[in-house]
């Protein structure tokens, strides 16, 4: 027992030692976290192999060229390839930070990479800092890690003058043109209010005011009508006079300029100058914003480097999303939060909370010796998860498995839901999503609508007719003889119509769904026969549809409704002579998941005659592409807690060590 404990503690401490991971540096309020797992990647492919690969060589020669250096290995970049690299972002109402955390192995090597011309970085202790040109980003590093941050100020924040005023920033809009065109006091009043609302006193560019002053006298005399306008706006004057005289004069410029519409040049002159002033001020404000962003970025970078704070590891949703086998991961905190944080920019829609009920999102990429796999997950609110659980509480009818022929199957698709639960839960989900979207006013109507739906539908009865599971399978291709018309010519080249036959290759499809109560379907069949839309032979019905390019048969057997285009397949199902073998992969996919999809390209190779693909050459390409494809499949996983998830996998063909190497070989082939 002791030994086991020691072993466990050893294992744990080893793990802790390993966990000197930069994730500790990601703050708990990070919004998105993306990870590239160096150790897992370079387990699949040694650094040496990477350097010698097509992609590696290209990368090294290109960077060597642009840096005027000679790199022989990606290790020359000084990055620690055995550790995780991170990207994360932080959102606030005023700034968005995009941040990268990269493990460093050899800081000197990295410095030589960025330090080619002039030494631009500063050093404090062992922390080195470099500011990107134009102050748009900061790079900070020491001997173990590198941190790169760029920040962008959010326009919406500074549109709120009260907030922006705190930082001495004004929201500036060019109004000269409008005020000129619309000779209205209302506009003036508005602009006056807008300006007075800003408590910060800013120097208004001098030229405009000077010009306005000069023009004041003659224009006032010329046009009495416009003077009224001036007077009206002038009425507002007393209220703000005490605050700032200069600004008022600036406002008055608009009516003055407008009144002078008889003399075009001065107006234009004023507008141009106003515009220049506006531009100048705009640039000043932008610079201020930039400086502010830089100040914030610097503080944030210092915090990451020197501060202590709670890391993202404490976030349960994040830590639960991790998988130590993944080679790359992405985690996005609650969609609802994302939505609400962007919401101000979307105006009223934001308040609706369209994303209510959706939590965090994650995606993981796996590569191993068999396949590529992308796994995605989405957290739901508890009530939503419960609803989905009820809907997903159905397994595919086991009898379906008898009708899949794995040796020949080109592919299949299946789903199984509890149709009764679906009909009951769907209106609720609808209400939850759209109820808030349409606003409180519509609540009653929606309630009424959903109730009406429940009233009209007898969920129980419907779920007996269509239980909610279905399978669509293509059990191979079949050649079929078809006739066609062509021409022959006699000795005089007179045309003679002749009928010839040729073989066409068509996929044999089979579609089935379970039904407990087939009375309705039987009635439909009876009606069909009566209207001669359906014919019957040995319990197999044929749909009489001239338009259809293939014959479609259907039948009901053992609580399953079958549709298919192969009469022989239908007959063998009817007489229990099916002799199909289902592979384990297919069986697992179908029986364990609520949704599955599979495409097996290999079973298509060489099955379609060249003539039907469009000649030998096209056929060759077609077949060789298919040969390179392994099984591609998708499946939904069972709901775990509040997490719904689905996987997409693509198997790699034999003869390749692992998916990463296969990917590299694909890129190399494509580049050739």
């Amino acid at each position, binding site marked *: 027992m002791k030994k086991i404990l020691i072993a466990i503690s050893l294992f744990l401490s080893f793990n802790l030692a390993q966990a000197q991971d930069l994730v500790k540096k990601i703050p708990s309020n990070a919004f998105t976290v993306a990870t590239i797992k160096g150790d897992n990647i370079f387990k699949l492919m040694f650094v040496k192999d990477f350097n010698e690969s097509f992609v590696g060589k290209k990368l090294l020669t290109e960077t060597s060229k642009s840096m005027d250096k000679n790199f022989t290995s990606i290790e020359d970049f000084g990055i620690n390839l055995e550790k995780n690299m991170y990207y994360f972002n932080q959102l606030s109402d005023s700034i968005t930070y995009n941040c990268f955390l990269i493990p460093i192995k050899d800081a000197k090597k990295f410095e030589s990479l960025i330090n080619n011309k002039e030494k631009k970085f500063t050093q404090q202790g062992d922390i080195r800092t470099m500011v990107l040109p134009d102050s748009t980003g900061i790079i900070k590093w020491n001997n173990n890690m590198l941190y790169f941050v760029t920040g962008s100020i959010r326009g919406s924040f500074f549109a709120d003058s009260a907030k922006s005023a705190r930082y001495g920033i004004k929201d500036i809009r060019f109004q000269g043109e409008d005020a000129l065109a619309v000779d209205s006091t209302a506009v003036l009043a508005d602009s006056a209010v807008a300006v007075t609302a800003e408590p910060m006193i800013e120097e208004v560019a001098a030229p405009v005011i000077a010009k306005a002053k000069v023009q004041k006298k003659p224009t006032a005399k010329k046009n009495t009508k416009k003077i009224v306008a001036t007077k009206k706006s002038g009425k507002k004057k007393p209220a703000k006079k005490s605050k700032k005289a200069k600004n008022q004069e600036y406002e008055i410029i608009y009516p003055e300029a407008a009144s002078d519409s008889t003399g075009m040049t001065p107006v234009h002159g004023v507008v141009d100058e106003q515009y220049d002033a506006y531009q100048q001020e705009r640039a000043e404000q932008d610079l201020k914003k930039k400086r502010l962003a830089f100040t914030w970025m610097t503080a944030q970078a210092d915090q990451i480097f020197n501060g202590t704070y709670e890391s993202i590891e404490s976030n349960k949703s994040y830590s639960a999303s991790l998988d130590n086998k993944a080679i790359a991961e992405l985690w996005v905190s609650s969609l609802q939060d994302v939505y609400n944080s962007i919401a101000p920019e979307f105006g009223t829609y934001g308040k609706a909370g369209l994303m209510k009920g959706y939590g965090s999102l994650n995606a993981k990429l796996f590569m191993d010796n068999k396949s590529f796999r992308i796994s995605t997950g989405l957290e739901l609110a508890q009530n939503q998860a419960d609803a989905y659980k009820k809907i997903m509480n159905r397994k595919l009818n086991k009898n379906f498995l008898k009708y899949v022929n794995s040796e020949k199957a080109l592919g299949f698709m299946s*789903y199984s839901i509890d149709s009764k639960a679906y009909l009951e839960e769907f209106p609720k989900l609808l209400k939850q999503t759209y109820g808030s979207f349409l606003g409180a006013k519509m609540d009653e109507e929606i309630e009424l609508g959903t109730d009406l739906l429940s009233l009209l539908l007898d969920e129980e009865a419907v779920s007996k007719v269509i239980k909610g599971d279905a399978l669509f399978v293509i059990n191979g291709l079949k050649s079929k003889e*078809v006739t066609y018309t062509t*021409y022959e010519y006699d*000795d*005089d080249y007179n045309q003679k119509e002749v009928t010839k036959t040729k073989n066409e290759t068509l996929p044999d499809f089979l579609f089935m769904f379970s039904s407990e109560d087939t009375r309705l379907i039987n009635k439909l069949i009876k009606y069909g026969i009566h209207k001669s839309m359906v014919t019957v032979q040995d319990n197999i019905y044929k749909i009489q549809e001239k*338009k259809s*390019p293939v014959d479609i048969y259907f039948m009901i057997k053992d609580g399953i409704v079958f549709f298919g*285009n192969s009469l022989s397949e239908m007959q063998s199902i009817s007489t229990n002579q099916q002799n199909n073998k289902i592979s384990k992969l297919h069986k697992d996919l179908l029986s364990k998941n609520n949704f599955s999809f599979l495409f097996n390209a290999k079973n298509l190779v060489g099955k379609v005659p060249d003539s039907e693909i469009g*000649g030998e050459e*096209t056929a060759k390409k077609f077949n060789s592409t298919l040969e390179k494809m392994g099984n591609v499949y998708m499946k939904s996983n069972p709901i775990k807690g509040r997490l719904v998830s689905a996987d997409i996998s693509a198997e790699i063909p034999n003869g390749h060590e692992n998916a990463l190497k296969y990917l590299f070989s694909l890129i190399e082939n494509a580049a050739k």
Partner: protein
Amino acid sequence: MNLKQLYKLLLFILLIPVLSSCFEVVEEISMKNDGTGDVVLTINLSQSKTKVASVMLLDSVQGYKVPSKQKIQQELNEAVAYLKKSEGISNVKSTSDFNNYIATISFSFKDVSNINNITKNILAQQKIKATNTSSYTYNKATKTFSRKYQAIVTAKTEFNKLKAKDKAVFNGATYTSIYRFESLVTSSTNPASNVSKSKKAVMLKSSIMDLINGKINVSNTIQLSK
């Protein structure tokens, strides 16, 4: 998945082996010694009828809108109406068979050059700026029938812009032209053409691909015995 969606899925699967289809375009001209004659144009898609029938059930395929049966019939009627108004053209008829997907248009002309005007006008209507790429002449005095053809340069460049899978539609499509005469043919200049046993007809068969690519030229001068 409702039945309609299932049906669409099924149709899509039927069409998987790329949309390559065989179709025939046949042009027959029967010349009388006096310069008058008849034309029959045939488009026969029956070799691909399964695919065509599948396509007809879809709204669009590979990004192209699929015309309805009514629309095709209407276009055909418009073509007939247009021909009826054309100078020197009479006896215009059309047939359409939507089971085998075969359509024909036939008419009589006073002079073979009447056909040239039709192509010219059609090109103008479609706003295609092309020098008359195909023209027929019949010289009663010398009894020579000739067709001048020049591959439309724009056709090739436009064709090359198509996606590979769209180009594949033309794989296996053929063009046949047959000229019949009352007198015996003494010579036919196009090496790809064949003179019938009776020496009263000339046939030229080519793939539409070669025609578009300019690999084959259908120009021909046929000398009749005097």
